[in-house]
């Protein structure tokens, strides 16, 4: 009990004298704020990309590609194969008995980004007539839906915001056709919002090609996946890879989000080492500034533990402030900030996604801050405790 009271007394005194040491204390705060801001911002990129890709999938949908395809652009499925997939058991059917599925063709179109005029490849996805039954998350927010058999297309919300020449009424040239933008769509924040959509048959006819890239189907239930998959893989007429839609999109962004993750921790780690040194510096000077105070307290009977705890508490408080400022900065500047990359979608077109500073990331940042504060405070705290009282008092 006595110890607790001692710690409380010294710590309070300590905190009250903090305003007099603003100059040195601010170093620890800013150092840690910098580390946390960088760590959280870079991780927010990885998180944002993963979230976008996860939104692109639903558990009761499956996507079928040609056997061995790494991505949709590297896949070719003939018309017969597509029909076999759509008619497989486990696929949900609508009121009239037609399977709810979409055989899709994917093309890349060169467009220019608005911010730096860089030329990027954007996906133009040809979809089947059952699109809205298959993907009810698609909503037209401006203009109207495209009509089949005429060269019309709709553009995703993010595509419209980031690429030039996609307003309703604009024309886009691809191999063999000139398309008119007739509408804008949202699809619940998924990767399709970075691209364009049109009718698959019209797209294929425009280029004299005959194959699709993938087939996406709505299943009777998430549990029907195994039945569907087994039926397709055991069919000798087909050579396909069957994946749950969510897993497929996750896999597409797996490599790049891992790379970002590693970058975040390597850069954040190196910065943290720097911040620990600056914390050590600050806390050592905090201790030496309070030399006579500490010595006096020790002389009148305060214990070593109370000294250690008070210094640690101060370091922790400063770290917390720094960590919160860093996380707040990251959130303020980057939450919802849109970035684009062509590596995320793995050859499936330029992907636009929002950085996402999630509560988990903020917690991670604060934990890092506290760890830095603790390590930075520990050695100076021990020094404060070991101070020979007599020498310290004589120094006055």
């Amino acid at each position, binding site marked *: 009990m006595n110890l607790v009271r001692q710690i409380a007394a010294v710590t309070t005194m300590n905190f009250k004298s903090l305003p007099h040491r603003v100059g040195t204390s601010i170093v620890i705060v800013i150092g840690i704020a910098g580390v946390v801001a*960088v760590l959280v911002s870079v991780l927010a990129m990885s998180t944002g990309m993963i979230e976008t890709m996860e939104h692109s999938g639903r558990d009761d949908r499956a996507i079928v590609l040609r056997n061995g395809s790494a991505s949709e652009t590297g896949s070719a499925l003939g018309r017969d194969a597509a029909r076999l997939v759509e008619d497989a058991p486990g696929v949900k059917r609508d009121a009239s008995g037609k399977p709810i599925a979409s055989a899709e063709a994917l093309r890349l179109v060169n467009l220019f980004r608005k911010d730096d005029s860089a030329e990027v490849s954007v996906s133009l996805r040809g979809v089947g007539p059952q699109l809205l039954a298959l993907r009810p998350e698609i909503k037209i927010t401006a203009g109207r839906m495209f009509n089949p058999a005429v060269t019309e297309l709709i553009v995703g919300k993010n595509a419209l915001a980031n690429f030039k020449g996609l307003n309703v009424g604009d024309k886009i040239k691809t191999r063999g056709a000139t398309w008119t933008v007739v509408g804008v769509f949202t699809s619940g924040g998924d990767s399709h919002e970075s691209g364009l959509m049109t009718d698959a048959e019209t797209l294929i006819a425009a280029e004299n090609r005959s194959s699709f890239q993938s087939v996406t189907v709505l299943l009777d239930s998430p549990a029907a996946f195994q039945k569907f998959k087994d039926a397709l893989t055991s069919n000798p007429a087909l050579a396909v890879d069957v994946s749950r839609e969510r897993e497929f999109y996750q896999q597409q962004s797996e490599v790049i989000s891992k790379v970002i993750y590693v970058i975040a921790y390597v850069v954040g780690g*190196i910065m943290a080492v720097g911040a620990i040194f600056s914390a050590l510096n600050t806390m050592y000077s905090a201790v030496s500034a309070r030399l006579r105070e500490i010595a006096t307290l020790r002389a009148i009977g305060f214990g070593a533990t109370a000294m250690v705890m008070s210094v640690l508490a101060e370091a922790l408080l400063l770290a917390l402030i720094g960590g919160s400022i860093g996380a707040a900065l990251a959130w303020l500047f980057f939450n919802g900030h849109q970035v684009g990359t062509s590596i995320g979608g793995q050859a499936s077109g330029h992907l636009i996604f929002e950085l996402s500073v999630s509560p988990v990331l903020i917690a991670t940042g604060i934990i890092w801050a506290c760890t830095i504060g603790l390590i930075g405070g520990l050695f100076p705290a021990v020094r404060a405790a070991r101070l020979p009282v007599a020498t310290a008092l004589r120094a006055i």
Partner: protein
Amino acid sequence: MKYFGLIWAGLWRKRARTIFTMASIVVAFLLFGLLQGLNQGFNTVVTNLNVDRLYVSAKTNMTDGLPISYSARIKAVPGVKAVSHWTYFGGYFRDAKNAIPAFATDAQPLFQVYHEMKIKPEYLEAMQRTRTGALVGEALAKKYGWKVGDRVPIGTSIWTTKQGSSTWMFDIVGTFDTSSYGGGFPSFYLNQEYFKENSAFGGDIVHYYLVGIKDPHQATQISKQIDALFANSTYETRTQTESALAQMQLKQLGDINFIVNAIVGAVLFTLLFLTANTMMQSVRERTPELAVLKTLGFSDGKVLTLVLIEALALCVLAAAVGLALATFAFNSGAMRAIFGDFRMPLIVMTMGAGTALLLALVSGLPPAWRARQLNIVDALAGR
């Protein structure tokens, strides 16, 4: 120089503090070196690319492909030395995870366009003779233990054979050395002729025409001429130099540049704050000592210089260590495997040195000025 001892002693007045300050500057410059090195390294690689090569692809999008019949017409353009082509084949060995960067090509002119690639003439001849032949980069051959004479199955998710199979068999007829180009060079080649004969569809398209030109100064002019040849046709072309193409691909990566600069900015800002603070604190603590120096006859300017040089020594020494560490990490080989001849660019060193000087000035000037302004009587009295 005679004041060296004095400066040195001042620097190490508080050993622990100096060491910690130095350590954090070292860390900051290590990060600076790594990030800027990577950034600048990309740029140097891009600008040092060969200028006597042009790449012709479909104007709408590279993936759309061009007809194979363009080859002869491009060859006829004045100033063109050799024309070859790439058709993306993709493919994998045994499992889809083992992706093989395979391209169909016309091998003889390919190695004329990429004249820095090393290949034995007998391998090229064998490739001409063997319809199902394949030329493989040495690194790839080593990875899968392939030897000349081996017959390897390559799976593909795009190109079905005429027999309806997804697996193509190739005879490895030779290997080549890509080390002068780095890891980006496709390292598996099959004959376009065989590809055309044996694939069920699409065997007559080309994704890139590779054009070797005689005079690099004519690159722009020849590019325009090639594009003009096919303007207003169904398959319009776009011709780019190697470095323009690489720049475009680099831009496709997105906002990397911005992110690197933002991180470096955050690091340097944090660091600046720390060092400036340490310096000021150190001067504040030494106020009486500086007053003694002034009493002994040191001029105001000399005291200012002493404090400033101390800051300079601290920053430059630590920055040098940090940059040296970064260079060491950089040249240790991992980078070279990916980017070929990838070295820490000199410009990063120069930028680092400049930043260190700036840091020293910004953090050293305020305390140095304070030291200059010291009034001897007040300072000695501790006021």
